[in-house]
């Protein structure tokens, strides 16, 4: 064609395309609140992963020097290596906070991951197949949504013992349902788009259409929702731990630490509440800011 003749010399090198992802990334990095959130998250994650390097005590050791006089001697100080002070039993709160942050992040991320994998597959399948299958699958979700999940979760923890594995199962089980609804709704609107019709007309098999055409176009929504889901999972876990049904000693989580700190607040040991709470709030802030930034960056209405 005539269009080509002008610059055949330059034609040999394929130009790099500007993908919708690259656009979103640029918008995200320009968002100050989101970058602050990301910085906080990087800090909290680094604290959880490498915080133990700085710790002078392990989380299990009892410091007999402060035991019994925690309110007087167990405060945060650099001199005896208890940066965040000690807890009621004389254990190093710094090491305990590192451990609690690890567990809380793990619960949040694993819970959100289960939600993303199960919810996306379920919702995309229901939405794409449609008809009776869709009705059946979504009514099933409706019924499960109507069950008071906290009650069931507590029952499960009581019946099968309070293990961290059970907690993951319980949190994951409830988290995917909202996700599947959102994904199904988005799939329904994508299914009517012409590029999906084009793929169907060409004879692309349904699983490939879901994987190649539907899910990549859903990833924005999924990413936003997953980032906002992580803090919700952390909150759920904290609530259960606060009730005393969550992770068990010697493991701990931010929720369990906050619960302990709140119990001993009357003895004048404010630091036992303050430090876990600080990391808890930082984590939640970080995730919410990043989630908000992702939404702004990926929202198709902004384009």
């Amino acid at each position, binding site marked *: *064609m*005539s*269009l*080509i003749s002008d*610059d055949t010399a*330059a*034609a*040999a*090198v*394929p*130009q*790099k*395309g*500007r*993908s*919708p*992802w690259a656009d979103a990334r640029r918008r995200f990095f320009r968002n100050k609140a989101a970058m602050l959130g990301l910085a906080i998250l990087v800090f909290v994650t680094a604290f959880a992963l490498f915080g133990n390097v700085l710790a002078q005590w392990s989380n299990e050791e009892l410091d007999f020097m402060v035991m019994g006089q925690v309110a007087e001697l167990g405060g945060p100080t650099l001199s005896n290596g208890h940066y965040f002070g000690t807890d009621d039993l004389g254990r190093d709160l710094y090491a305990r906070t590192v451990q609690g942050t690890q567990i809380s992040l793990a619960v949040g991320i694993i819970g959100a991951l289960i939600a993303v994998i199960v919810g996306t597959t379920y919702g995309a399948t229901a939405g794409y197949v449609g008809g009776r299958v869709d009705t059946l699958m979504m009514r099933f979700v409706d019924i499960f949504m109507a069950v008071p999940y906290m009650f069931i979760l507590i029952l499960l923890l009581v019946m099968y013992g309070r293990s961290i594995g059970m907690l993951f199962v319980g949190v994951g089980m409830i988290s995917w349902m909202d996700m599947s609804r959102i994904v199904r709704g988005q799939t329904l609107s994508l299914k009517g*788009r*012409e*590029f999906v*019709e*084009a*793929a*169907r*007309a*060409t*004879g*692309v*098999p349904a699983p*490939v259409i879901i994987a*190649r*055409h539907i899910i*990549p*176009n859903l990833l924005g929504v999924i990413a936003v929702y997953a980032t906002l889901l992580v803090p919700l999972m952390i909150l759920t876990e904290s609530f259960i731990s606060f009730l005393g049904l969550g992770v068990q000693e010697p493991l701990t989580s931010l929720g369990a630490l906050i619960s302990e700190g709140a119990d001993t607040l009357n003895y004048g040991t404010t630091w036992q509440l303050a430090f876990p709470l600080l990391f808890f709030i930082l984590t939640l802030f970080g995730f919410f800011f990043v989630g908000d930034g992702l939404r702004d960056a990926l929202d198709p209405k902004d384009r």
Partner: protein
Amino acid sequence: MSPLLSVRDLHVTFGITRAGDMPWTKPRLLHAVNGVSFDLEPGETLGIVGESGCGKSTLARGLIRMVPATGQVMWRGEKDLLAISAAEMKRYRSEIQMVFQDPLASLNPRMTLGQIIAEPLKTHRPDLSAKDRAARVAAMMERVGLLPQMINRYPHEFSGGQCQRIGIARALVVEPKLLICDEPVSALDVSIQAQVVDLLMELQSEMGLAMIFIAHDLSVVKHISDNVMVLYLGRMMERAPKRELYAAPQHPYTQALLSAVPIADPEVERTKKIIPLTGDLPSPMAPPSGCVFRTRCPRAQAQCGQTVPEAGYGDHRTACLYPGAIRAEELA
């Protein structure tokens, strides 16, 4: 030799359930396409025209089973596309490809141009190596006038005309026998329309394609088609070779449509007589009895409400009880 595509008595019917209906309520039926028959020879272009909502697109989608259809669609005299299994249909999908109306919406925004054009090849020619596939994609891109360095770009970086070229390249990369164009130019600027239509005609003669060209722009259809079919409310009104249809339309609906085409000459336009169509398109849920066009027809008689007019056979088919040239009293 048998025709490439032979359609007999094609019906597409949708069941409409309203919100609030009980699950056991019988859905109301909407006959989107109602007994359409036609033949298509290899290399022929059939233009399909009609108002919005007359079933043009549904007809095309029914042919390739994108919507459930009944009737008979014989492909090269060997297989009835409506009777075979979905798995068997997949084989024929590479022989019938489609170009869509909205050029940007018909391309996946997360795929590059190269991936989009390669997709039908991946589906129908899994035997090709990645290198062969890339070579075919590159050849196809050049053929539709896309620069090779654009291969890694995304759809949103292209203009409407370029997007439609991508859509055409995607349809033709598997070398189909029949190309269904569903209003391929109605979303484009007039200057771009001409380019795309010329490109389609060029490719058609190069590849020996047959085409079904759906449009509501009568002048575009006149330019590209060999034969033209006029639809109204899911029924065929008239089908004739292009020259005959435009020069001597027999059906009052065709005459009304043609008289409404604007002429790019103010003198002629001012003195031109048109046939006024009164009223709106009747609801396809409750079409008029007999001839569906009778409610708006200047020529309607009592008999039109009784008998459904048959189109007959031959080159020029008119589904009207009183066909003939325009009469003086019908003009406004």
